[in-house]
């Protein structure tokens, strides 16, 4: 991992997106996974988008991981990722929803029923 200097950052975050914080596609979340596509990088991309592509060279990353790696806030990274996804330079995948947990009441009742069956 890169060690970010502890001091005050010289370049503010808004510069990375040109002051835009509203991503062009709304479904990106902190845990969305970003991965490079096979698409060739066109010339003239902004520096921050190139930096994100470089960060994804090693494999897929979650939005929040990429943000930490580049030292940018998640909001700025979402804008960058959405822009790259629009050009089909990266894939985005929604976070895996946490599996539904069973209702503890139901489990308890089933256990009670089983126990009742055993004793009966």
């Amino acid at each position, binding site marked *: 991992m*890169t060690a970010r200097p502890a001091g005050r950052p*010289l370049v*503010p*975050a*808004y510069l990375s997106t040109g002051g835009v914080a509203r991503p062009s596609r709304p479904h990106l979340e902190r845990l969305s996974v970003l991965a490079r596509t096979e698409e060739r990088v066109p010339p003239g991309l902004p*520096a921050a988008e190139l930096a994100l592509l470089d960060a994804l060279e090693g494999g897929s990353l979650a939005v929040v991981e990429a943000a930490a790696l580049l030292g940018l*806030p*998640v*909001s700025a990274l979402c804008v960058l990722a959405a822009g790259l996804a629009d050009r089909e330079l990266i894939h985005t995948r929604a976070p895996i929803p946490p599996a539904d947990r069973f209702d503890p009441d139901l489990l308890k009742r089933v256990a009670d029923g089983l126990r009742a069956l055993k004793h009966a």
Partner: protein
Amino acid sequence: MIELPDLVAGGLAAGTLSALALGGGLLRLRRQQTRQRAEISALRTQLDGSLRAFTAEVEHLAARRVPAAAQRVAHPHLAVPGPLQPLTVGTPLGIALENVLLALQAEVASQRTRVDAAAQAGMRGATREIQAALYRLQDALRRLQQRYDEPELAQTLFQLDHENEQSLRRAQVAAVVCGAWVGLAREESHLVDAVTGGQARLAGYQRVKVHNHLEPGTALVSHAVEPVAIIVAELLDNALRHSAPDTDVVVSLEHVHHGVCVTVDDAGLGMTRDERDRAQRLVAGDAPILLTDLGDPPRMGLAAIGRLTRQFDLGVDVSSASPYGGVRAVLRVDSHLLSRLDPADRPPAPSAPRTTRRSGPAAPAPTHAYGTQDAVPDAPRHHTPTDENGNGDGEGDGNGNDGLPQRRRRRTRPAPAAVPEASAPPASSRPARRPEEAAAALGALQSGTAAARSGAEAAPAAGAPTATAHDTDHTHDEGGAAR
């Protein structure tokens, strides 16, 4: 008849004589007196005249010359009127009056610097407080940016951060003009980060296009980081302010012999000669800065640059015109303010423009990771076009300059194939000199050496040698002009 005694007669005679003498004396005395009276009255009128002249001179001094002399302290181009009577110049009176003016000017000047220093101290204290408060605000805003990523809120936070950066820049520049420290200690940073950081402090920063031609890892020593950011911000502010909103401001970072140059070009109005001279005077930072000289509203940017260039041994030049029609400002950072950072260990900020330089052949030892990573794909890239001869504009990434030599080579290759014997010698770039030309060249060389040997002895006889000498002079001149 009474016989008068001799004594009496003598006395009478003496009396008469003395009366005559006295009368004559009296007469002479009276005449002298009238002459003196005339003289006195003449002198009195003369005295009156000169007193009037003196009064008029002093009145003129008070009414005209003193105000002019006092104004001249602030505006050196003003002329102080001379004395009313031109004849007094050089007389003790004239010298005394001049001394009055000189003493007045000295006193006004010292009062002026004293008042200005007091104003600067007051402003310095105020701006330092404001600056510290704005840094705290910045910290708070950045924490909020990290915590909340809801787009509408993030948008507002970005706007606030940008506004805050602009206010910070104003406060910082005012403090620097008033002789304060830049107010922030930074650590060693990439030069391109300092430039991009300066760019971020401006309204309309989207119009700035930065071209980075530096070696990867070119950095600034810690104490030069903030000054360079401030200077770049001020130069860019001038450029943005004085150019149309639909034009770009072009910044390029390049290595020069003594360090690094940051060139800012705008396509704006440009400056007149007077403005340019004034700007150059200000950024040179030689003269002490007075707030009263900066106008109302005070134009602090150039003055701040002047302070910083003098303090940190930076060089700024605004005296040349840009090829785009506006102003070209050049900031020179000398080598003693530069250092190196390993870009693999501490990469520049993600928003900082990439360098256009491939770190393949010229990469110095420290940049191991980047150097090898880039050198490996670079090497085959050089070969593939010549082998395949086909896809000229392959990877549009950064190798536009790779396509050009390849085309040139392909075009020169058929030419030697058509004339095989001419291409036989290895130095085939200049074999095409015809025999006549060779003879002419050798002849010129011969006549030249002959002329030099014959020296001064045969000036009129050697027409041809002098002609050749003249020719060589001419070419020298041309070379000089071209350079």
